[in-house]
Structures are given as C-alpha cells and as structure tokens.
C-alpha cells in the first residue's frame, strides 16, 4: 500500500486498510471465571440465579416425571380388551366412553361455535369498545370463564336435568359444556379478528362490498387459523372435563345412541375406575389415552395457530 494516496473526493478509497477482526479484544467480554468471580462478590445475585435455575429444573422435572410415570404405568396395560365395543365389569372397556366423549364434544362445538363466533364478530366488527352493552357482554364472558366447573355441573343439574326434565342425558351434558366453552371460543375469535388489519376492511368497502360480505368473504377467512385453534382448544377442554358432567351427562357405562340417553365420557370413566380402586392398571391405561388425546388436540391447536397463520 502506498503511503501517499491521491484523495478522490466523493469516491470511496479503493482499498481500506485491512484489519484482522479476530485480534480485536472486546473489553466487555466476560469469561466464565470473570462471571464466577462477579457472582462470588454479589451473594444476593448468586442466590437468586441459583433459585431461578432450580425452579426451572423443578418445573421441567415435574412435567417429565408426571408424563413418564403415567406412560410407564399405563402403556403395559393397554390391552386390546380395553377397546372392546361392549363394556362389562371384566374388560372395563373404555371404547363406549371414547365414542361418547367424541359425540358430546362434537355436538358441543356445533352449538357453541356459531354463538361465540357471531358474538365475537359483533364485539369486534359492529360495536365500539366504549359501548356500555359491549362492556356488559365482556364482563359476562369474563365471569363465565371464571365459574368453576362444579358450579356449571350443579346448574346443569337443576336447570337442564330437572327443570327441563331432560334427565341425565347427552343433551344436558352438551348444553352444560356449551356454557363452559362459550367464553373460550369467543376470546380466541376476538383476538383473531382484531389481528386482521383494517386495510382489509377498507379495501373491501372501497370495492363496494357490504359489511356482511366483507365479514364473511374477507375477514373470517383471514382470521380462520386463530378461530380454528380456539375451537380445538375448546375441544380439549371438553375432553378433559369431569366435574361438570357427573350430574348432567350421567354415568351410564353404555354407548349413548341418542341425545336423551345417558353416557359417561372418558374422564368420567377414569374417575369411576379410580374410585373403585379395583383396576389400577386399567386406570393408568385410561389416563394415558386421556393425556394423549388432550395433548394431540392441544398440539393440533398450536400447529394450526402457528403454521396456517398468515403474516400481514
């Protein structure tokens, strides 16, 4: 490199002096020894860091322990007879309960989804957030999501089972569960609708579409992934629910073949098995199926929420 360089104004120098980056020693880099020394000087920080790490390890260990223990106890007990079509006290088959669960869950969603999605559409697309009516609806939804499942159960019993005289039946169970999942689906749908940018609505209006057309053709498809993941979460909630169904859906071990028949769901089946205490292995096996079912459902919700989500 020449010592005297002709200065070309407005032009980059063709060659910059080469610097070996690896030889630069950053003054803010800490080695492990530095870190340890710093922590030894500050006992408060060290204790806190250790506690934080410990808590994380405890949480992780708890999850792993519960899941692995259940699998270890349950998997060897997963026998073909547990999935026989007919229940009897020898095979304690969970097949009728699984089918009852799916039937109840699907029917619950069929009723709950339109109501909560429509309500969410009203809350997001039609009403101003300062509206008193909207505030009341929001408060109602929050209260509804806080009510313990046993209170839903006792309400379902006095209202659906006795007052409407449906008896212990699928129908009573379905309507009780509808009340439970309404706020869940509404909240996720609201979030999904709010995530759709306003430019979509403006564009649609500008092209001459009416409000209704905008909602059903533009906004709902854009928000679909969020809505579906909310629906799947609700499905998981129904599958895992026990307390609200004991005194509404009833405890018949048979397959419910109609809306007015009583039938137990899988979690209820497991409760009775566990309480009898005679079928320890079978109870663990039922627990495995229950956990797997809920985990698959929740995983699907997350998958749908993440993978199908469009970035705007």
């Amino acid at each position, binding site marked *: 490199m020449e010592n005297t360089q002709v200065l070309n104004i407005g032009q980059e120098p063709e060659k910059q002096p080469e610097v070996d980056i690896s030889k630069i020693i950053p003054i803010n880099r800490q080695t492990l020894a530095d870190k340890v020394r710093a922590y030894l000087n*500050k006992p*408060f*920080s060290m204790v806190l*860091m250790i*506690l*934080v*790490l*410990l*808590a*994380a390890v405890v*949480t*992780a260990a*708890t*999850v*792993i322990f*519960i*899941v692995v*223990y*259940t699998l270890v*106890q349950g998997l060897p007990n997963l026998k073909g007879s547990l999935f026989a079509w007919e229940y009897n006290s020898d095979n304690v088959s969970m097949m009728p309960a699984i089918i009852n669960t799916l039937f109840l869950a699907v029917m619950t969603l069929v009723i709950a989804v339109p*109501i909560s*999605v*429509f*309500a969410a*559409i*009203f809350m*997001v697309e*039609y009403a101003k957030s300062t509206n008193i009516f909207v505030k009341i*609806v929001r408060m*109602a939804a*929050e*209260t509804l999501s806080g*009510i*313990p499942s*046993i*209170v*839903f*159960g*006792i*309400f379902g019993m*006095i*209202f659906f089972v006795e007052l409407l005289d449906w008896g212990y039946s699928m129908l009573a169970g379905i309507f009780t569960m509808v*009340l439970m999942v*309404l706020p869940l689906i509404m909240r996720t749908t609201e979030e999904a609708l709010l995530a759709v940018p306003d430019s979509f609505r403006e564009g649609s*209006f500008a092209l001459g579409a009416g*409000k*209704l057309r905008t909602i059903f053709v533009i906004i709902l498809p854009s928000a679909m992934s969020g809505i579906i993941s909310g629906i799947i979460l609700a499905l*998981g909630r129904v*599958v*895992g629910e*026990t*307390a609200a169904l*004991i*005194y509404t859906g009833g405890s018949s071990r048979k397959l419910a073949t109609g809306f007015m028949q009583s039938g137990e769901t899988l979690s209820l089946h497991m*409760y009775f098995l*566990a309480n009898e205490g005679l079928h320890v292995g079978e109870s663990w096996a039922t627990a495995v199926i*229950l956990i797997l079912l*809920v*985990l698959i459902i*929740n995983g699907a919700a997350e998958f749908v929420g993440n993978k199908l989500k469009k970035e705007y």
Partner: protein
Amino acid sequence: MTEETMQGEQAVKRQIKVDPKELSMKIVFIIAAVVFIAAVVIICVFIFVQAFPALREIGLFNFLFSSEWNPDINDTGHGEYGIAAMIVGSCYITAGALIVGVPIGFLTAIFMARYCPKPLYKVMKPMTNILAGIPSIVYGYFGVRVIVPFIRDNIGGYGFSILSASIVLGIMILPTIISVSENAIRAVPKSYYEGAVALGATKERAILRTEVPAAKSGIVTSIILGLGRVIGETMAVVMLCGNQVQFPDSLLDGVRTMTANIVLELGYTSYGSVHRGALIATAAVLFVFILIITLLVSLIRKKAK
C-alpha cells in the same frame, strides 16, 4: 376497528339503503352476544333462587359459621348444615397450593423470560403447555398413586391430607402463573433492564428490582388467576383431600373443601330437599368467591392501564 373506519362506514351508510340481509344478520350477531349475558344471569338467578329456601331454613349465619354438617338424607328436618369447616378447608388448600406453586412458578417465569436460551425455550414452553393440558382427573389419580403413598410412608398421617392436595394443586397452577407472569415480564421495556445494568446492577438485581416491580400487576393477576383455579378445582381435590368435615390441626390432617362437598353429596339428594338446597348454597358461596376474584382481576387490569 379504528374510529376512522367507523366514520367512513357511517358516511357510506347514510348514502346507501340498508340491505335487509345486512340488518337481519346484525340482529343475529347481537342475539349471539346477548346469549352470554343471558347465560350468566340465568346461572346466577338459578343458583341463588334455589339456594334461598334452604338458606332461610338453615339461617345464613348458621350456614356460614357453624361447622356441624350432618345432612339428613330423608329430609325430616333434623339435619345440620354448616360449611365453616369446608370454607376453612378450601382456604387452607388454596393457601397451600399458592405456597407451593407461586415461588416456583414466579422464578420459572423469570427463567423463561430472561435466562432461557432460545433452543431450550422451544422445549420448555411446550412442557408448560403440557402441564396446562393434563386433565384434573389425571392429576388427581397421579396424586393418589404417587404423592399420597409417599407422604404416608415418609412424613406420616393417612396421606390424604392438606399437604398432598396442596402439592398437586400447586403443580396444577404452575402453567397459569408461568405463562401470565412471563408475558408480563416480557412486556417490560428493554430499556429498564439496560438502564439498571448500565448503572452497575447485576443481571439478577436488574431483573428483581426494576423489571419485576414494573411487571407487578401482571404477576399479581397470575397469582389471582391461580387462586381462582384452586378454589374452583374439584376432581383432583376430592380424590386427595381426605374429605373429613373437620378443622384440621396439622398439614397431615384431611379436610373437605366446598367443591368436594358438592361432588360427594349431590348424588344422594332429592329434588327440593334442604340437603340439596344446602349444596346449591355451597355453590352460591363458591360463586361469590369467584365473582370477587373476577372483580379483583379486572380492577388490577384497569389500574395497570
């Protein structure tokens, strides 16, 4: 939807006639929203109206402050219905679960928000989600088969106790506390942390003294949400708490909670009996607890804004 879009839309509305289809669908949407209000009102009215005759017979004071619970199955008027011991039982187990769950959950939330390297986070987050997804009946069974024998063999008592219920419920509220607190800590502007570190604070001091106070409302909300979940929890509790109606002397004694009381006895009651009414009144008390909690959460949220 922003105000601007609203205004533009109203201007358009004035010029075009309202399509009957649009109007009818709007009414459908409103009705769907009304369903929510109707549901809450109906549940409230039914629980309280059905509880009222029994409460009048028992006396509200007796019901809340007597600990004699001797239900009269045949409804001949000789039953004693006092849920004081169950309210105390619910409180003990709630406190126990919070003592187990809050410190671990809070510290794990700090870990997730500020310590966890990204690859580890991708494992930790689904794990806490798994914890949230496990049905309460499975927690209950796990407690009965693992925690209860462990306590019976190593600490003493029958095992079905406040302690075992608290441990299991503490685990159950972990995901709620972790995720809500973590979001609250993440929402604190990065500059708080940077400022504290620039002034010479260690990472831990910066987190605990600047970020945590800033995220206080979210963390308190997470604890109250966990509290609501514990008070309302039924299936896991009924399998673990021992279900004796008594004031406990130690952590190893069994208690009965309000939720357990309802589940255990509702099946034996007949329509219109005082016993049934007393159980519905128990649900009403539970309902009032939850209403207070919901109110608290919304108050905190409003204050935080």
